[in-house]
Each structure stands twice: as C-alpha cells, then as structure tokens.
C-alpha cells in the first residue's frame, strides 16, 4: 500500500515544518503535488487543503489564520495516517548492514540531487552536453549505490532517469519543457525517497550498525510511463499534440560546436590529463626496473592515447603532437622495434614533462604562453561579436601586413574606442580562463565539529584576554611577557580568521533555491520572468545564509507578485513582456550587499502614503518626507495588504518580517525605486557577525555593550540639560538638539538605588535614523567581542541581540540599538 509511506513521509515533513519557513513550505507543497497519484478517496480532500494552505503560506507569509488552519490540518493528517497504518499495511523492508555506508549514501545523494536540480533548470535555458553529462553521472552514482544497498525503488527510478538522460546525451532526444518537467519531478521523488530513508535510518538505526529500514513506496509508475513514452510518438493517442518530442537530427549539436568548449571543460581536461600523465609516468619509471613491461607499456600507451584524443578535440595542437610522439615511441617499444632502455625512457619522460608544462601554461595567466592563441578568440571574431560585419573583417584580414586592429580603424569600420573594448575583452578571455585553480581539495566536515571549533576559538580569545589583562599583572613592567603576549594574540587572530572562513559557504545553494521559486511563481502568476543571478560565489557565514533565506523569498515573491506588471500591462507600457528579476550579491567594504531588482512598475508614492496615513503610521507632514523614508514605510508592521486592492501597495506583505530578520543580523535594507522602471532592494549584511567592535558599560550589576558603529558620543550631563516633558518622559538638550532619554535602569525595571537621570553617563546612540540618549552607570571601555547567541530560555529579553564573554569570564549582554529605540519611542 504505497500511500501509507507517502503519508508517513509527508507527516514527518510537516511535523518539522515551522510556519515561518517558506522554503520548507515550498518543498512540502511541491511534494504533495508531485504525489498526486498517491491520493486516495479518503485523503484527497485533506491533501488538496494542505496544498492550498502551503500555497497561501508562500504567497501571504505567516499569519494567525493560516497557522490555526495548519494545526487543524496537521491533526487531521495524523489521524489519517494512524488509521492507515493500523489497517495493517506492511511495506517491504531492506536490511542495512553498514549504517556508515547508508549515511554516506544519503549525504552524497543529497549533494547530487541538489546540483542536479540546479543543472536541470539551467538546461531549460541552454542545452549544454556537458551539463547533461554531469546530471547523467550523478544519476548513475545514485543508481549504483542504491542498488548496492538494495534500495530497489530508488534504483529503478534513477535508472529510468539515467536512460532518459542517456538519450539526451546521444542526441536521440531534444530537450524540451516536458522532459525538464519529468526530470524535475523525478528528482523531487528521489529527494523525497531519500528524505524518507534518512528519517527511517535516524529512527531505527540509532547507534546500531546493522538494522533494517522500510523502503519508501512512493508510486512513480506514472512517471516511468511518461519517461518510456518520451520520444516515442506512436504511443501517444494524438501524436500531433506533441510535435516537439520527435527525434531531431544531430546537426544542431554540431553547429554550435565552438560554444561547446567551455572553461570548465578545459579545466576538467587538464585535471583529467594530469592524472593520466602521473600514472603514465609512474608506469614508464617502473619499466626501467621491471622485466614485465608489457602491461606497463599498454597502460602508459592508453593514457597517452586518451590525452592525445582529448587535446585533439580541444585543438591544443602542441599537446597533441607531443603525446603522439610519445605514443609512437611506446608503440615501437611494444612491438619490439625499439628497446625500453634508458635513453628511450628519458625521451618519453621528457615528452611527458613537455605536455605537463604546456598544460600548466593553459592554466597560468602568462601572456607569452605558446598555447595562448588556443584559448582566446581571434580579434576578428570578437569584433564580429560586437556587431562589426564579417565582410569588413575579411577585407581587413586581406591586408594582413598590418595589425588587424589598426587596419580596421584606418578603414573607418570601427572607432578607436570600439577597438579598445574589443582588445580588452580579447585580453580578458585570455586571462580569465586560467585563474581557476586546478583542483578543489576539500573534505567534508561535520557541522557540529565546526561549530564546536568555532566556540573553542571564541573561548581561546577570551582566555587569552583573561591572561593578558589579568588583575595580577596590571601595572607591572613586563617586557618579555608583553612581547610573547603580542605574539600569542597574533596567532589567535589568525586561527580565528581561518575558522571564520571555514564556515563561509557560497550563496550558490540559496540562490539556486530561488531559481526554483521564481520558476514556480512565474508559472503560477502567469508572468513570464527572466531571472538573472550574479555573484552566487560570494561567500557568507552558513548561519547568516539561513537567516536571510526567508527575507529573500519574501522580497523575490513581492518583486514578482507586485513589482512586475502582467504581460499585457507591460506591452501597453512598451516594455518587454518578459519581466526581469535580478538577484545579485557582492562585497561592499565590510558588508555583503544582496540586491534584488525588478523592472516592474516601481513603488507608488501616493498609494503608500495613503495606506500609511490610514493606518496611522505617519506622524508629521507627509509632504516633507524624504522618498527613502516613504519607501521604508512598507516595512512597518501595520502596513499590511489585508484591505488593499491595488497591486503596488501590496508590497507590504511580510515585509516587517524581512526587516526584523535583517536587523537581527545587524544589517540594513535600502530601497531604490523609479516609477515605471522598477524597484531595487538592497540587503546590506555585515561581513562578520561573530565579532564586533563594542563599547561596554555598566547598568546596575549588569555589563552591557553596544556596537561601536551605533554610538555617536558620550557625555557627562549636567542637570540643566534635562527637561521632563511628561512623567517619566525626559529629553536632553545636546548642543540645541533635543534627544529623547532612555534610562537603562528604568527600561529594565531594575531596583537600583538609582541616582536620578542627571547622574551617570550619557551614551548617544543612533539607529534606524533615530537618536536616543542612554543613561548608564559607568562606561567600561571598548573592545572586540565574540558574539554568542543568548540561550533559548532568555531570548525574550528586550532589545538584546546576543551576549559575549568578558575577560574575567563574566557575561556581557549585547544591546540591539535599533530594537531599543523601537521599543521605547514611537
């Protein structure tokens, strides 16, 4: 009974689901929908409800109504599941003999499937045989390991997908949206099955080496049928409806043969060839001492032959030549026409060294490399690419005596500036290829270990300052000690920065998830969208990436839902009917900027103002408000869409969540919008979250700290600077600027034998465009702090974003200036 395992899988996913987690919502919804054929009469209604609910989550974000509905459905699902299971269905089980193998299979499959999904989506836009190969290989691995483990279902499905890919690979089929959908669907099912197994393994395999797990019985027969039917028009009842499935001749592939050679391929070729060379070299060296040379020669010969073939394909002529010479020599030795003596072996080894050098030159950016012409396009081609007609170039090429560029300028075909540009891009092409390093040498590390290491490094720094700032040595003249202390601190900083960099991962994974989101949203809302991604290799702390995932979903959803107009409106305003959403990440100073821009209608000032005034969000005269201030209104918690109909003002959906999440990361959001041309949102996230420059101070018995960048000045106030406007509402006059006063003792209701506001020290802070004067008891100093999260039980504390350990081991609370101001002032 396959639907029980489906339900089991679903309910385990739902049990883990938290309403705010949009990415999971997307995944679960996808899951429910792909499993349509598993619906039974008694579950259909519930499943449809669930799917609608998650759809609402994705579109509207979290709200109370949905949450209560969610809990209701969750209960129903559990009831349904229990009733099904009690009906006594037994799913077949698989005996796992080595839990380690299973675990690494699960891990590996996740990795593979993640990349597969991304590659399939890329494939939709651009048919690239290399990509198909990659997907094919990943699928093949999954198939192989799953069959080894006896997971028949996974093996079956991956096998079918693999053969489908194989047909794509040999160009028996052409890629079309149907195939893409099938591949995606298949991948989804695989992911679900592996998730299921992962759950099973965790549940049953805890601490055991051998155990058996139930095999996921997701029904994918329909998908298998589809795969079988593809490219087989006879099976369709009405083949005319599917004209694009017919077999296309191979010609199209050959036509863009030049485009086939990508940087990646070159790098792969070099990687592969270096391995081959190494092993060939090893064989040849063995030949010197060994009497059994036959096999060694054969092996070396084969390797060189492969290199020759591949370099021929890339038209790396000199590599091809050298490998052919070495190959010939080996052939002679093999046939007995030549002896494997010292001299011959030296010659072969020399050849191998040549080849290796040539390959290194392909990689290194040296300008005078003999291979250079092989990796960058001739100038003529570049110019053609820039819109200069081919005949002009050919004409110029006739006058080969001069440099091509000069001639073209003389002939007036191109201007000097165009030529410069062309030359620049020509150079770039030559340089960009080689920079990428040969091999990624990486290992997988348990995240827990990494986090632990991170904690330990934090402790190390604390311990270091305990020693260096020890009370016992204060004020003593210790020259040698100071020197060693300085050395120690240099090392700890370095360890720290290495540890930090270990936790950095590229944004690629997150961005790829967005691809899927955009694809789905664009289909659902029937708005064609071109989604551009750049800077996906920008690296961020893993924890931060988790935090920005949700805001990013909100922003992109809003950009497509409310930002982009529908195709008709776009045509009417003479825009390309396909909307553009651009997602970009880059480093700016010590921040990372993630930009989401669309070319939609832009924010509407009037509508935002109207909505904000209705909701009472504006104090003062809206006419004098800066545009930036107006745009920021959409982040106000009250600025909701519940009763707004218009497209543009709908941009408030979940936006206060976005702001809160970003502020939690001590980041900022900027909005830039031009009516009719689009909107740009910039998330500015500080590069290191873990370490801040902070100013520490005392309030009552507590040590607190503020980020230095939020602090403007300190001052020792005199009584006449304060004015009490109302009871407990005090303002201070600093150089004729009126700033509201927040007494920290009052803020936290501390029973301190408190001096009045006119004692203590004032810290003027600024955050979110507002200023406030904090009254604290004593300023302690300024230092770098390692930020830790507050323990769960304490995270309700107002206006505190984390804590840190002081040199003496005491805990210091790190204040969130923005939240503090928000909590006190309107």
């Amino acid at each position, binding site marked *: 009974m396959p639907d029980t395992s489906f339900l089991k899988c679903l309910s385990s996913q739902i049990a883990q689901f938290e309403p705010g987690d949009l990415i999971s919502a997307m995944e679960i919804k996808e899951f429910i929908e792909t499993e349509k054929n598993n619906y039974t009469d008694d579950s259909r209604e519930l499943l449809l409800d669930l799917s609608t609910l998650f759809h609402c989550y994705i579109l509207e974000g979290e709200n109370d109504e949905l949450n209560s509905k969610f809990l209701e459905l969750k209960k129903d699902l559990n009831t349904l599941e229990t009733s099904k299971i009690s009906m006594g269905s037994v799913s077949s089980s698989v005996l796992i003999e080595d839990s380690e193998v299973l675990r690494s299979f699960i891990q590996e499959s996740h990795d593979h499937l993640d990349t597969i999904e991304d590659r399939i989506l890329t494939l939709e836009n651009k048919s690239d045989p290399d990509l198909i190969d990659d997907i094919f290989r990943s699928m093949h691995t999954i198939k192989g390991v799953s069959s080894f483990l006896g997971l028949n279902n996974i093996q079956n499905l991956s096998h079918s997908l693999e053969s489908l890919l194989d047909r794509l690979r040999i160009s028996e089929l052409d890629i079309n949206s149907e195939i893409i959908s099938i591949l995606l669907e298949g991948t989804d099912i695989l992911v679900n099955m592996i998730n299921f197994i992962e759950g099973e393994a965790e549940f049953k395999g805890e601490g055991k080496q051998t155990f058996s797990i139930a095999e996921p019985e997701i029904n994918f027969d329909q998908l298998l049928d589809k795969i079988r039917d593809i490219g087989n028009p006879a099976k369709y009842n009405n083949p005319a409806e599917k004209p694009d499935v017919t077999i296309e001749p191979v010609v199209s592939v050959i036509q863009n043969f030049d485009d086939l050679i990508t940087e990646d391929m070159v790098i792969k070729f070099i990687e592969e060839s270096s391995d081959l060379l190494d092993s060939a070299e090893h064989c040849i060296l063995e030949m010197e001492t060994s009497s059994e040379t036959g096999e060694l020669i054969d092996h070396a010969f084969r390797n060189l032959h492969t290199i020759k073939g591949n370099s021929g394909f890339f038209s790396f002529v000199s590599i091809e030549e050298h490998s052919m010479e070495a190959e010939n020599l080996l052939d002679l030795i093999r046939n007995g026409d030549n002896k494997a003596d010292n001299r011959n072996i030296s010659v072969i080894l020399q050849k191998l060294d040549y080849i290796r050098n040539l390959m290194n030159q392909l990689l290194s950016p040296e300008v005078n490399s003999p291979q250079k012409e092989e990796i960058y396009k001739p100038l003529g081609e570049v110019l053609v690419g820039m819109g200069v007609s081919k005949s002009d170039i050919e004409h110029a090429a006739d006058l080969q005596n001069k440099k091509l560029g000069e001639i073209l300028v003389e002939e007036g075909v191109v201007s000097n500036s165009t030529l410069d540009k062309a030359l620049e891009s020509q150079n770039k092409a030559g340089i960009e290829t080689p920079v990428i390093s040969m091999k990624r040498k990486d290992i997988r590390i348990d995240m827990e270990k990494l986090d632990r290491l991170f*904690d330990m490094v934090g402790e190390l720094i604390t311990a270091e300052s305990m020693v260096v700032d020890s009370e016992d040595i204060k004020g003593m003249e210790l020259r040698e000690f100071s020197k060693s202390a300085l050395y120690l601190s240099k090392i700890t900083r370095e360890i720290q920065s290495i540890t930090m960099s270990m936790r950095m991962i590229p944004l690629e994974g997150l961005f790829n998830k967005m691809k899927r989101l955009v694809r789905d949203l664009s289909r659902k809302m029937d708005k064609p969208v071109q989604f551009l991604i750049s800077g996906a290799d920008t690296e961020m702390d893993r924890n931060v990436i988790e935090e920005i995932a949700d805001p990013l979903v909100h922003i992109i959803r809003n950009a497509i839902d409310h930002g982009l107009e529908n195709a008709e409106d776009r045509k009417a305003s003479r825009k390309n009917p396909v909307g553009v959403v651009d997602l970009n990440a880059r480093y700016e100073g010590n921040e990372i900027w993630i930009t989401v821009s669309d070319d939609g209608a832009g924010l509407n000032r009037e509508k935002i103002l109207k909505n904000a005034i209705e909701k009472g969000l504006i104090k003062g005269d809206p006419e004098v408000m800066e545009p930036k201030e107006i745009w920021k209104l959409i982040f106000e918690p009250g600025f909701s869409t519940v009763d707004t109909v218009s497209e543009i003002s709908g941009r408030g959906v979940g936006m206060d969540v976005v702001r809160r999440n970003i502020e939690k990361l001590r980041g900022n959001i900027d909005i830039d919008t031009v009516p009719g041309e689009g909107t740009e949102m910039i998330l500015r996230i500080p590069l290191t979250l873990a370490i801040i420059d902070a100013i520490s101070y005392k309030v009552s*018995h*507590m040590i607190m700290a503020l980020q230095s960048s939020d602090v403007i000045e300190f001052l020792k106030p005199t009584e006449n600077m304060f004015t009490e406007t109302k009871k407990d509402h005090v303002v201070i006059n600093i150089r004729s600027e009126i700033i509201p006063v927040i007494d920290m003792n009052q803020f936290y209701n*501390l029973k301190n034998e408190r001096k009045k506001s006119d004692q203590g020290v004032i810290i003027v802070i600024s955050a979110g465009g507002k200023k406030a004067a904090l009254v604290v008891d004593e300023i302690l100093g300024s230092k770098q702090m390692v930020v830790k999260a507050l*323990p769960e*039980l*304490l995270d309700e*504390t107002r206006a505190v974003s984390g804590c840190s350990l002081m040199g003496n081991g005491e805990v210091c609370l790190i204040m969130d200036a923005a939240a503090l101001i928000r909590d006190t002032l309107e």
Partner: protein
Amino acid sequence: MGAVKQTIDDIFLVDDDDENQNDNKYLLFNLGREIFGLKISSIIQIVEMQKITEVPDMPHYIKGVINRRGKVIPLMDLRLRFDMDGREYDDRNCIIIVSVHESFIGFIVDTVAEVHDIDESNIEPSPNFKNDSVKDRYISGLGKIGDEVKILLDVEKIISDKDLDIEK
C-alpha cells in the same frame, strides 16, 4: 564536606558507554527539608556556586547566566521556582547543569546529596491534589528508598511550563 564537594565538582556524570545503566539512577539534592531527584541521564555537570550575571526582563526565579567553558548557561533557582522562600547563597549551594532539547540550563539547589538507584517498581505517580502547588506540577513521580520518599522531577516540565510565559 569540602573534600566531597571537590569530587562531585567537575565530574562529567554522563558517560556515553553506559547510558543504559544510568536509566534508573537519580541525583538527589536538597531544597529546604525536602529531598528531590533528577534523572541522571539528563545531567551534564555539577558545579559550585559562582558569580552570576543578571539578565533583565526575566521571571524572578531566573537568576541570570553563568559562563561555563565558553557556554552561556541560564540559571534557575529551584526554591523560587517552587514558590519556596528564597535564601542567601553560600558555598554549600550547587548548580546542577542539565541538558534539555539540546540547550543547557543550570538549577540552583541547596546541596547535592548523592546518586541513588531507584527502580521503576519503586516509583509511584504523584497523587493529584485538587489545589496543586507549583511544585506538584513538575513531579514525574515519587521514588521510594527504604522508608524515605524522594520527589522526582520532570526537567522538561520545569522549563517549558506555561507559567514561564505568563509571569514574564
């Protein structure tokens, strides 16, 4: 007493190898005149009283946080939690650090007595009185050792009980 304390202090009580053996073991401690027990499998460490950093906005029985090997651990005074009278801390007070849902919390207790086996057959459910005191709500059972009755506590309930939110 000092010597005994030294041995208890800093001993990691949870040993991965014999987790099963710890199932029936309870750490007994005093609050006032009564003796309470906590399942040893949830206990990470027992440390002596140390300087506590206050945290604002917390219910009165959350005394603050301490730094234990780089981990910031919140402290709960069990006397105050159970609506008993508070008491000045002295060096006989101990902090029992337990792990719940992958996070840590320290319980401040009067003194730690001993570790004792209590077989499941010797544990009885606590009778439900109509006017439950705060304390009664966190009892997982009553353990009998000879003639004595020890109150066994449910760590999860102590921490996650609803009145945590209400009192805030």
